[in-house]
């Protein structure tokens, strides 16, 4: 009944199934928004954050999903700038995921901030030395870029194509996309880096403090590299997930494999840099601030195993898996390697946000622990639900995967 909107030649579930799916996620979204409403109306005392744990679940997951959202800029870089045309198959899906991750992260930040109505102060009275100003400027600009990149995909919808003005606008916009992609790469380089720089510059937190080059700490470059490394893996995961749910072949396997290979190379480079940075930090940076690195890891919940897991288990292993052809060919192993890589980045973001705040800085500080409250978790579930809804509608009414039509025989 809504087939007039679905692109010709693509098979989609019946509207009834789809509306059941949407209804479920709308309920989840409602529950999440109720949690968010409580945080806004009652105040941030609804969360379990406190004067030591100033950042909690939200900032950790914000950093993580913005790193996952790096798929948009990296696939754009590969396709439009490095002219690797085989990635046209995933670019639309990557852009939609990027838009979801960034808009979700910004929405959660609006709730995480104590006075959201004063958010424009950061633009009106910017402090150029602060990494957070740079993050705020870049993320809002990149959100605009992503929205503009989403427009052509939206306007290619079968019904919207009918209107001449929209068709013309979409056609001309498509011509301009490579420039937008370039801007996107430039902005992403800076805000992914600045999200890392947020913690690298904190000389007051020796666990997170790193020296670097010029005004940027080494975590700036590590975060960019890790985001770039995850750039290809996350679309790989999402595409496999969507194809499993929709029971359709969406992308040629070679595309996923080349995504995996690139992600492998970058992950290997990242692991190398990360190990060098950790050794420099353990032997020179931290002792120079009279904080012996051993103390960071003698807490019960954060032993040295977390450092080993982040660098080796979730870093080196997936990198090697992605680089060996045999493993890459096998679809199951490819997905596991992607999952491991994404988990590695999530652990890195967790260590940077939660462990930094948990560790004592004053000699008489106790080691504190933090468990998110249900409102925090609900707010984040709202973001996930919003993402799933936006992706479901885009997948149903827009052509996210051009190769889908050729791959699936047009039989029901």
């Amino acid at each position, binding site marked *: 009944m809504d087939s007039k909107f679905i692109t010709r030649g693509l098979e989609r579930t019946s509207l009834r199934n789809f509306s059941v799916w949407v209804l479920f996620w709308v309920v989840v979204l409602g529950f999440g928004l109720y949690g968010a409403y409580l945080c806004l109306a009652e105040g941030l005392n609804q969360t379990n954050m406190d004067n030591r744990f100033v950042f909690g679940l939200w900032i950790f997951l914000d950093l993580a999903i913005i790193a996952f959202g790096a798929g948009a800029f990296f696939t754009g870089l590969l396709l439009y700038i490095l002219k690797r045309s085989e990635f046209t198959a995933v670019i639309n899906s990557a852009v939609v995921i990027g838009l979801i991750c960034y808009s979700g992260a910004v929405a959660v930040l609006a709730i995480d901030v104590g*006075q959201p*109505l*004063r958010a*424009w*102060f950061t633009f009106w009275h910017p402090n150029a030395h602060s990494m957070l100003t740079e993050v705020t400027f870049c993320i809002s600009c990149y959100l605009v870029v992503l929205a503009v990149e989403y427009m052509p995909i939206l306007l290619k919808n079968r019904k919207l194509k009918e209107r001449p003005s929209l068709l013309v606008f979409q056609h001309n916009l498509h011509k301009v996309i490579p420039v937008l992609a370039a801007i996107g790469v430039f902005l992403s380089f800076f805000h992914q880096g600045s999200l890392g720089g947020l913690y690298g510059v904190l000389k007051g937190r020796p666990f997170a403090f790193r020296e670097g080059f010029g005004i940027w700490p080494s975590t700036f470059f590590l975060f960019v590299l890790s985001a770039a490394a995850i750039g290809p893996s996350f679309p790989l995961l999402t595409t496999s997930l969507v194809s499993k749910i929709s029971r359709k072949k969406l992308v040629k396997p070679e595309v996923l494999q080349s995504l995996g290979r690139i992600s492998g190379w970058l992950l290997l480079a990242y692991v190398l840099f990360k190990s060098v940075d950790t050794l420099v930090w353990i032997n020179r940076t931290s002792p120079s601030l009279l904080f012996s690195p051993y103390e960071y890891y003698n807490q*019960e919940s954060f032993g040295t195993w977390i450092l080993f897991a982040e660098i080796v288990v979730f870093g080196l292993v997936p990198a090697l898996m992605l680089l060996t052809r045999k493993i890459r060919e096998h679809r199951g192993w490819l997905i596991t390697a992607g999952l491991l890589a994404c988990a590695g980045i999530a652990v890195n973001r967790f260590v940077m946000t939660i462990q930094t705040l948990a560790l004592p800085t004053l000699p008489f500080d*106790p*080691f504190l622990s933090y468990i998110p409250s249900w409102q925090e978790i609900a707010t984040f579930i709202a973001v996930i639900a919003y993402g799933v809804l936006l992706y479901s509608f885009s997948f149903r009414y827009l052509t996210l995967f051009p190769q889908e039509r050729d791959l699936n025989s047009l039989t029901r």
Partner: protein
Amino acid sequence: MSSALSRRNILKLAGGSALGFLLSPMPWKMLDDISIWTQNWSWIPKLRRGPVTHKYTSCTLCPNACRVNARMISETPVSLWGAPDPCVGHSYLCSVGLAGHHLAYHPSRVRNAHRFTATENGISSEQLSVEDAIAHIAKILHNIHVRPEEGEFALFDCRPHGMVSDIQQIFLSHVLGARYIVPDHHEGRFMRALMEMTEDPGQSYGLDFSRTRTLLSFGVSLFEGWGISPLVVEQFRSRREEFNIIQIDHHQSSSSIVADTHIAIKPGTEMALALGLAHVIVGERLYDPASAARAVDLKRNKPFSFMDLTRRFPPGRVASVTGIPEDVIVRTAREFASNRPATAIADDFAPAELIHSVWILNHLVGATGKNGSVVQKRPLPQPWKGAHRTPPTRLRNVPDHSLRLLMIDASAADTTVSWPDLRRKMRAENATIVLCSPYRPKRGESVDYLIPIHAPYETVRANPSGEYVATSAFQISTPLWSKSEEGCETWQILQRVVSASGAMTKEEFAQLEPEELLRLQCDAIFNSKRGTIHHPNNDETIPLGSVLSSGDFYATLMEGAAWSDDGVATSTNGRLFLMGKSTSSAQRFAESVLAFDNAGIDSNPSFPLLVVPVGEDVAARFGHVSPILSKIYQESDLKPRSRFAYLHHETARRFKLAAEQRVIIHSPHGATEAIVRCDSSVRPDTVQLSVSQLDAISPTRPRIINSYGGRVYTDQPIFVRIERARS
């Protein structure tokens, strides 16, 4: 066509108005105004404007009577600060005093009388006017008057100190069989113990540490609360280097952390140490020859004599009993005896025999001698010297279930009464308790009538200085708010109840207003022609003689000045009775010392740790203090917190416990849960628990004393075992 036209037109219209909206100042002004609005939300209080003035008064929250300099903004106090006070010498306010002006706005403040009736689903309260309440109570008093067998009438005075207590005693003397009850332990008990050991019994004493070089403190909380601590703080503040403090405490209290030396003693064995020190002083003839000459029983060594007792406490044995190394005992005794003038002090709430042995030490080193720190002082001139008054009886001595009607005067903020003891004294079936307090009764305090009285600083109150001060002094606590509503004082309620019940015959000052009573007190002081007046405004002192009339004297006192008596020329030089004057007191002391001999405290293996009880937010839980005290008791863990068990690092390691771990504390009588905290100031083989945790693990309710130092005494020691809680 028309439908397309209208749809496209609507779009065009929307586009046009959007552009218009952006070009108009509306969005930008709204953006700016909304962010200013977040600064001026209606629930953010607006600051009052007006000239800044200063007003001098004195604080009535505890017997110290500290002098207050209130910073006022157009007749409303903003903050209170200490004012210079030559009599006690200190010019600081404790943390509760600093927020005294908040008590008038305390959340549980009541403005009209209440009657509470116990119903099946809890207590229901109904409001009634003060007159009706007084009428009801008067009727009950009248019944008691007519049929005495129904029970007795009594007034419980939380702080028996000063002019108001005298008036209440005088009023009560007119009611047949009325009792005037005072708490078991109240200020000055330590000083009054001296009377039984000196020749002239009626003499009252004070402490003057201005020349003292050594202070030996048996578990006294030196830097918090009232009593001795303001005197110590003043010397600590001005003569830090030469004022040597030796603190004897079973755990590292805040006093011992700041003291020069801390002697960690096994709890409950302080008396053995005192007698051990006396043994060394007598043994090595370190005592002050003058006071030795005055000491009567220094020579006789009959059984039960002083010499016989001290012989039983050689340093070796004392070391084994108290856990203090022998050389430390000898060194302390020598330091205490040689570095004179020296004084030993004990707590008002300490056991009687410990106080007695501390005074022995003082006599030996001449603290009560000519240049010692114990000085004689003349009592405050009283206008109603000869008036007949009912003698105060201790709550302990009141027979159980004897009271039919009890009036509680809670004008002082620190109602330290333990409610079950009070309840035990009341008649079982129809007993009536009347609470005269500015605040609602707290949870667990079952009260029948509540009559509102003035909160601190709302009315004029006489404020004589504390017991321990070297010279008695007098100042008036003038109100901070000019427009204090009607309200009244407890003694006015008592007077109206007593006269309404027909018991009152004649009393010339029955109908007097508080100001007139104060004027009487001022006349009495003025006629004594003694002492000096100190005005904090310009910090200068003038002799009383230079004041023309008692009216001017009263006026200067109302502006915040303070009168303090002249020092007594001769210090104590009468004979000293080390074992106490009467043979019965000597007998009692000797038996308690001998009884101590064989009451060794030994823990059994299954419950190795001794519990050291500490009052955590005692001040906040018992007395009514300003909500701002949450900064200390709720928003920081400066004071010991009730959900924590504090262990020394070694003890924690020995029992394989780690900080922030949930544990279960087992005692022979029960178990309770807590979280482990490591604190090296806790004695190694003990665990420091808070009062609220004690109820579950101790056989009897502990006697809780409300000094802000949080000192708590339990009848007998409690031993526990700590295990990790399976979470």
